């Protein structure tokens, strides 16, 4: 049985094809989901891809968060469905309060596209199982509003509960608090990060293939859950 991973297209989504390609390269089956449908077509996991949903107008992810598909996703995520938000998807997860904090304008005020080194801080989420804690990976980062912020108490809580999943290495690219690149919810099924693992799955087009393990991890997670 292959794992079915849904990838949602919102108006203005850009990286959904890349996410689908990554899912396929990881041996799972990509399933296209549409923002206007409530149905998740029986997928085992969902990816909210990068891009500029609704032009990133108002705030990144703020308008997409109210789409019909998000209603279902919010419900299912609370019930344990693995959900990965990449960049714009991460912003949506914060806007819908599935993840704490918010993403703000990069401190240097420019869009930045670069190959970013990260440390995997938590290899026990649905999307990072195939990494080991402490692994250093390089994947593209590209955004204008990637500065992770939350109040001090929330940040302390995230640290204490091991919910910081990725941290920036080799210089903080956007002013994120405590170098945070990605976080998870308490249950570990919802993960959001600003860098783009789906752009690091082929040696030909990516800086590395370090991103592939995200997509194999979720298969592992889904299978484990079936067995459990």
């Amino acid at each position, binding site marked *: 049985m292959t794992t079915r991973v849904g990838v949602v297209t919102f108006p203005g989504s850009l990286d959904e094809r890349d996410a689908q390609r990554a899912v396929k390269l990881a041996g799972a089956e990509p399933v296209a989901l549409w923002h206007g449908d409530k149905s998740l077509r029986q997928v085992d996991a969902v990816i909210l891809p990068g891009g500029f949903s609704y032009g990133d107008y*108002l*705030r990144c992810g*703020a308008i997409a968060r*109210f789409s019909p598909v998000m209603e279902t996703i919010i419900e299912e995520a609370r019930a344990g469905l693995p959900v990965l938000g990449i960049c714009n998807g991460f912003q949506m997860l*914060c*806007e819908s*309060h599935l993840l*704490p*904090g*918010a993403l*703000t*304008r*990069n*401190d*240097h*005020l420019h869009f930045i596209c670069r190959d970013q080194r990260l440390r995997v801080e938590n290899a026990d989420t649905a999307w990072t199982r195939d990494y080991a804690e402490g692994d250093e990976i390089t994947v593209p980062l590209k955004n204008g509003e990637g*500065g992770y*912020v*939350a*109040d001090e108490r929330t940040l302390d809580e995230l640290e204490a509960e091991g919910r910081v999943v990725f941290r920036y290495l080799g210089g903080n690219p956007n*002013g994120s608090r405590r170098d945070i690149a990605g976080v998870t919810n308490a249950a570990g099924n919802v993960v959001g990060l600003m860098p783009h693992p789906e752009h690091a799955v082929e040696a030909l087009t990516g800086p590395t293939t370090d991103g592939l393990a995200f997509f194999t991890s979720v298969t592992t997670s889904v299978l484990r859950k079936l067995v459990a």
Partner: protein
Amino acid sequence: MLKPEILDPQGQAVQRALPRLGFDGVRDVRQGKRFELEMDGPVDDTVLDRVREMARTFLANTVIEDFDVRVEVTEEESR
């Protein structure tokens, strides 16, 4: 407006630039958003409550932003 405890890089960039442009005496700059909504019909308390709700749940992200709603009557309009 971003809450006071949240770093505001845009405001800071403006503040840093001001002395270079010859504008002194500005202690702090913060940058936020402003929405002008034009309503169908008069803005009574019910409408105003709905606008506040709209601001709270949608126009502002209250995790990091505060907001303030004001009514302006069109005839008094300041450009």
